[in-house]
C-alpha cells in the first residue's frame, strides 16, 4: 500500500481526470478528451473506468465492481483487488452499500441513489464510429447536431431484420443535444440511464470521458412506427424467479437443457435470501 499513491494514480493525474469529469458533467453526453495513462492492465480491460474510479475514490468509499452484472467474474475480481491493494478502500458486493460502482456492460437492477456514483468501462465512445470512420467528421457532426446518420443504422436494422436488432450499445440522445453511446449495456438497461446516481463513462484507449448528471433526460433513438423497446429473454430467473431482471442463458449439458439466471448476481442473491425460489433454485442452493 505505501508503495503507491492513494488509488494508484498520482495526484496531478487525478486532478486532470477530475477536470475532465467535471466538464463532462457540465455538458452531458459530450465526449471530453483526456490524457489517458498507461494502466497496469491491457486496453479493453477497463483502463478508462479504472482511471475514472481512481480519480473519484476517497478513502472512506466502499467500492463494488461488476462485469456483465456479476461480482465474481475475472474482470470484476481483478479490478476489485487492484483497488483493495492500491487504495485500501472497503469493497462490497452489495449494490446498496456501495458508494462507487464500476461496471462493465450492465446497470445494477436495484435503483441507485443520489449518493452513489456509477462508473462505466467504455470500449468505443463514439456512437457514429462504424458509420463514419473519420474522427474530424464525427466531431463536426456532434458539434453541428447532424445525427441523421444514426437513424440510417436503425433503418438498416429494420430493413434487414424486420425490427431494430441493435441489442446493446443502443444509441441515446441526452437532453435533446448529444447522441451518446451508453457503452455496451443491453438495451434493456437503457431506460435506467435516467437515474438518481451520477454516471461517469471512461474510455481509456480512446481517451474520452463523458458523463450523465443525476436525473438527466436520456432518450433512446427510434422511429415513430418502430418505437424503442427494452427487451430481455422471456423467462423468469431459474434461481430467484424474478420476472423483471435481465437474464443470462446458461447451457447445462450436451442434451440441450439450459437455465436462465439473473445477470446481476447481487440482485439474485438478495432475492433468494428473501425467500424467492425459482425453477432450479432448490437444487442450486
Amino acid at each position, binding site marked *: 500500500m505505501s508503495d503507491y499513491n492513494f488509488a494508484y494514480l498520482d495526484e496531478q493525474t487525478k486532478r486532470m481526470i477530475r477536470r475532465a469529469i467535471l466538464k463532462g458533467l457540465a455538458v452531458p453526453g459530450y465526449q471530453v478528451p483526456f490524457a489517458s495513462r498507461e494502466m497496469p492492465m491491457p486496453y479493453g480491460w477497463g483502463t478508462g473506468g479504472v482511471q475514472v474510479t481512481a480519480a473519484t475514490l476517497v478513502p472512506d468509499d466502499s467500492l463494488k465492481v461488476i462485469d456483465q452484472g456479476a461480482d465474481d467474474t475475472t474482470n470484476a475480481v481483478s479490478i476489485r483487488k487492484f483497488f483493495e491493494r492500491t487504495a485500501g478502500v472497503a469493497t462490497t458486493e452489495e449494490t446498496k452499500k456501495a458508494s462507487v460502482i464500476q461496471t462493465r456492460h450492465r446497470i445494477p437492477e436495484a435503483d441507485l441513489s443520489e449518493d452513489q456514483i456509477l462508473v462505466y468501462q467504455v470500449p468505443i465512445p463514439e456512437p457514429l464510429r462504424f*458509420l463514419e470512420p473519420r474522427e474530424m467528421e464525427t466531431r463536426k457532426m456532434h458539434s*453541428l*447536431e*447532424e445525427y*441523421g*446518420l444514426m*437513424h*440510417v443504422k436503425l*433503418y*438498416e436494422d*429494420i*430493413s*434487414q431484420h424486420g425490427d431494430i436488432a441493435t441489442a446493446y450499445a443502443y444509441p441515446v440522445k441526452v437532453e435533446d443535444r448529444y447522441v451518446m453511446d451508453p457503452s455496451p449495456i443491453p438495451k434493456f438497461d437503457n431506460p435506467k440511464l435516467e437515474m438518481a446516481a451520477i454516471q461517469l463513462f471512461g474510455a481509456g484507449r480512446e481517451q474520452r470521458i463523458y458523463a450523465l448528471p443525476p436525473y438527466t433526460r436520456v432518450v433512446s433513438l427510434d*422511429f*415513430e*412506427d*418502430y418505437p424503442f423497446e427494452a427487451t430481455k429473454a422471456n423467462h423468469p430467473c431459474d434461481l430467484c424467479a424474478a420476472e423483471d431482471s435481465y437474464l443470462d442463458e446458461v447451457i447445462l449439458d450436451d442434451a440441450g437443457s439450459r437455465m436462465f439466471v439473473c445477470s446481476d448476481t447481487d440482485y439474485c442473491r438478495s432475492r433468494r435470501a428473501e425467500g424467492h425460489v425459482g425453477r432450479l433454485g432448490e437444487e442450486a442452493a
Partner: protein
Amino acid sequence: MGAEVKEQDMTPLLQVKALTKMYGPRIGCKDVSFDLYPGEVMGIVGESGSGKSTLLNAMAGHHAPDCGEVVFDTRADGPVDTCTMSEPARRMLGRTDWAFVHQHARDGLRMSVSAGGNIGERLMAVGGRHYGEIREQAADWLGRVEISDSRIDDRPSDFSGGMQQRLQIARNLVTGPRLVFMDEPTGGLDVSVQARLLDLLRSLVREMGLSAIIVTHDLAVVRLLADRLMVMKDGHVVESGLTDQVLDDPQHAYTQLLVSSVLQV
C-alpha cells in the same frame, strides 16, 4: 421551358461574383462570374486541370474560395452569400436545397449501407423519423431512376456502375433540391449507359424544374443537357454563351480546338 421560368422570376437562383480559388501561387480558378436562373442548366467544359472541378467545389462550399461571392436565393431569407454564412447553415443547405453528384458514385454513396438507406439518409438528416414513409419514398425514387424496387435492400457495391450513378442521383434528389452540382456525372460509364443516364437526367431536370451546374469534358453531354455553356482554360473562363451558339460558332481559339477535337463517328 427555361425561358418561361425566367420571365416569371427574374431573381437569379445563384449569382457567382468574381470567384477566385488559389492553390498557393497557382491559380485554381480566377474571377469567375455568372448568374444562374431557376430552371436553367449551366454547363462548364474544359480540359483536365482547367479549374472546372475547383470552381464547382468552391461554389458548393467544399473549398473555401479566396475571394468572391456565391449568392444563393434561399427559401427563407432570399439571396445570401453562402461563403460567409455559418457552417451549420451551409451544411443544412447542402442536404436540403443543394445536391452534389460526384463523378465516382463511391464518393457520393455509403457503400456499406443498402440502397434504401442511402436514399433515406437525407430524409432522416432533415428529421424524417417514420420508417414506413422513408421506405416508401426510397422505393418511389428507385423507380424514378429505373432501379427495380426489389433491389432496395441490396448494397450499392452489388450494383453496376450505371446503377450506382443512378442511385447517387436518387439519393441527392429525394429532398427536392433546387440546385444540383454535377461533377462529370457520366464519366467512366460506357456510351449506352451514358445515353440512358443522360435521358434520365434530362427528364428529371425538366420535371422538377431543377437548376443544375454540370462540369464535364464531354461536349455531347452539355449539348444534350445544358442551356448555357462556359468554357474554361487555365482557371479562366474564355468563352460563354448559349450552348448551341458556343458549340456551333466557337469564337475563342481554345473553344475552336475543343470543338474540332471531337471525333466524328
